[in-house]
């Protein structure tokens, strides 16, 4: 092979390497087009809606997981209602900072600011369903993975009292819809809520 051919070959190889490098580098940047900004905006587009949920709780103390089903309703800017139908009727409603739980004619109200562990769970559901970026960023560190067709958002609690009870919350979804919310608690217990059929009212 003469010198010209070698240099052409070398240059072609280099070009190929560069283009391969570039294409490899392009992959994450294409995924990074789906940013937290865009996610929050598409989540926030739906101002109110209803969904059914199936929640499975794995608690170490118990021999088998607990399953409950019911209906979630959310209304911007800060209302969330969770009505459990099975196994026992219960309704939970959050308005701003106040949480009201009604079971069997007994009603209890709490302030979320007084109970960060409860806030941690409630706000993860409410914040993602409503696309409330400010609240989510105030309470958690956000990490987004995936694309718009299938994304995963990890929420790590910032407050120490919250972090003592909740390790992490993983939300998955597609486009502007939330598909599942999985909570891992510090003592190892897990809960997974699958959300289905979000209809806009």
């Amino acid at each position, binding site marked *: 092979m003469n010198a010209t051919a070698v240099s052409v070959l070398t240059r072609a190889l280099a070009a190929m390497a560069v283009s391969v490098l570039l294409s490899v580098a392009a992959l994450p940047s294409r995924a990074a087009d789906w940013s937290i900004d865009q996610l929050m905006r598409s989540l926030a587009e739906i101002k109110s809606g209803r969904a059914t949920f199936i*929640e499975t*709780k794995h*608690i170490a*103390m118990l021999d088998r997981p607990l399953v409950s089903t019911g209906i979630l309703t959310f209304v911007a800017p800060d209302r969330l209602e969770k009505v459990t139908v099975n196994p026992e009727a219960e309704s939970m409603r959050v308005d701003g*900072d*106040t949480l009201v*739980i009604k079971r069997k004619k007994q009603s209890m109200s709490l302030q979320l600011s007084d109970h960060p562990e409860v806030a941690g769970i409630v706000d993860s559901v409410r914040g993602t369903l409503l696309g409330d970026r400010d609240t989510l960023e105030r309470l958690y560190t956000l990490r987004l993975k995936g694309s718009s067709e299938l994304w995963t958002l990890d929420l790590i609690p910032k407050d120490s009292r919250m972090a003592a009870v909740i390790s992490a919350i993983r939300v998955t979804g597609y486009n502007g819809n939330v598909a599942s919310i999985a909570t891992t608690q510090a003592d190892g*217990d897990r809960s997974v809520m699958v959300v289905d059929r979000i209809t806009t009212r």
Partner: protein
Amino acid sequence: MNPDSARRRWLAIATWLIGAALCAVQVYRTTFVSDLSAFLPQSPTQEQRVLLDQLRDGVVSRLILIGIEGGDAKTRATLSKETAGRLRDDPAFASVANGEAVNADRDLMFLFENRYLLSPAIDDAHFAVDGLHAAIDDTINTLVSPAGLLIKRLLPRDPTGETLRLLEQVNGGNRPNTQFGVWSSKDGARALLLAQTRAAGVDIDAQQHAMQQIELAFAAAKQTQDIGDPAIKLGMAGPGVFSVLSRDTIKDEVSRLAILSTLIIVSFLLLVYRSVTALVLGLFPVVSGALAGVAAVSLSFGNVHGLTLGFGTTLIGESIDYSIYLFVQSRRAGDSGASDNWVARFWPTIRLGVLTSVVGFSTLLLSSFPGLAQLGLFTIAGLITAAAVTRFVLPQLLPEGFAVRDVTAIGERLAALSRHAAKLRWPVVLLFVLAAVALVGCRATMWNPELAALSPVPAADRARDASLRADLGAPDSRYMIVVSSSDQETALQSSERIAAQLQPLVSEGVLAGFETPSRYLPSVATQQARQASLPVHALPERLIQAVDGLPVRAELFAPFLADVAATKARPPLQRADLANTSFALALDSLLTQRGSRWNAILPLAAPVKAGVPTEIPVAAVRRALAAAGQSNALFVDLKAESDNLYGGYLHEAVLLSMGGLIGIIVLLLAVLRSPLRVMRVVLPLLGAVMLIAAVLVACGHSLTILHLVGLLLIVAVGSNYALFFNPERSVDPDAQTMDGISPRTLASLVFANLTTVAGFGLLGISHVPVLQAIGVTVGPGAVLALLLSAIFARSAPGEAT
């Protein structure tokens, strides 16, 4: 001077000086008070008595409601937290609540550690196998909800979910809204705090100190947070605050009124007499009257209220009248025999005037308000003394040749005016008709239905108190059951029995809920019953059977077995165990000790429909009370009580005023012996009353009980002047104009009237509603009485009866 008159003279002067000295000693020993209790009516019913006691000494009286307004919500929240933090360190306060969960952990700990003594679900059935199964199942299902997070770690020790049940019980009630972690008003414009002082509400000095501490803490908080905005302010309300404010107001008022009235009257008299001697001599009856008045009240009531002293300005204005008559009517008062002359000619009329005033003010004496009774006695004693001193002592003190300047010239001008007065008769009659029509027309809206209008606390402060209470979501304190017992344990047991009967009413929806002290501290009997139902030996066996079918293993609950065994053996809970939890304040406001009696209060909450509380059916509650068999329990509907109370006082005021009027007419009839003459005296006075009432109503004032009293006083005080226009016979040889009134007499009437009007008129500008109402009616009323008497006096001069 003959020995007889000399003896008379020394006797009169000596009696007067000794009397004055005795009164002065009594005044020196007098205690002066200025709290609100003089203007709280003597409670006729047992219900009201219990509650008024609460207001004076109870926990309610120690609460100071605080509102921070201005700025934005976040700043207010920061200031609320900072101020509350500082106040919590202050020994003057037992507790300071602002919505921060300072006690949340301690509260939960308290409920958890004492759950088997506190929980209402603890009985034998609860620890049977079925009961355990149901309770554990329920608790496991709760783990699904966010509330479950709070109790998850408690599961091994509390499988039957007592802690959650207790949390629901104490958190179920009305809470104030919160913003940024602190309580705020419904419209979000105010941050709210509730402070409880250690000192009782009746200790005004301590309450004032507490108020100062709050102001200082707020100022320090602003400084620390670098907030310089003067628009951010702190406002306070509550029974203790009201006491302090009223005391300050009353003190200011009394000194202001006393100084002003003295200045006005002194300058006026100097202008008229142009003689300092005359002024000083003229003040002797006034000072004697004031001393006698204060001494009489102090002896009869044990203390003298500040407002009574404030009313003293009217006494000054009225009692100076007698010396004016003496100096002006007798030509040369110092001449020997001149005063005897005066006594013979004018004293009967003056004496009758004093008597009508006494009858008028005695209606106050009979009132249910101790404060008004003091005013009545003060005036009666003062007037009688002043008149007596003028009649018996003053003539003896006048130096030879004493005379004030001749006011005949002024009198002539006044006489000329009054000759034209008769022309106004028909226009005035027309005015009467108009006034009557107006009053009849406004009959329905004329009266102010608020008992609170009589309170010396200014309306603005009362409004602020009402809105702070509403914002704090204080349970509608209209309905309550009060149980009085000889000791704490009996009181708690009674409230438990009543609570047991009230619970079904809540389930039926008749009541929205209720509070009971036994929720926070069950009676020892109940605690021991609950301990007895804990089956320590049988429990492990029953537990194994109970978890059959549930996703748990019985081994998990070993800590539960240990806790149950520990609870069974421990001593019962006491009040001291609640210290440092939020429940301490709750218990203290519901269970109070007063002397040797213990009172338990069970406030009832009415069901709310569309945001408005409805009425509780009284019959249902009374049935429940009867079923509980507690004879020492009272059901109180505060609104109904105070409506009835007001109706009662209005009724009483009308009766007293009518009685006073009839008394005056009877007195006049007895002395004047001619119904026609009595009519001529009284009709102009009644006309004045009608006109004043109509003008007040037309100006938008709604009349209270005190205005009614003031209208009666117009007749009593005005008669002093009206009588001169209708003398028994033409006693004045200088009479030229109608009815034998000489110009000098007319002048003396006008001067006397002006000083009286000055005295009452000053009350009319007072900030205290009680004084203002009387001043605003009697001041103008006295002037009108004089004018109308002049207009309607008989026109033919020198006409004999």
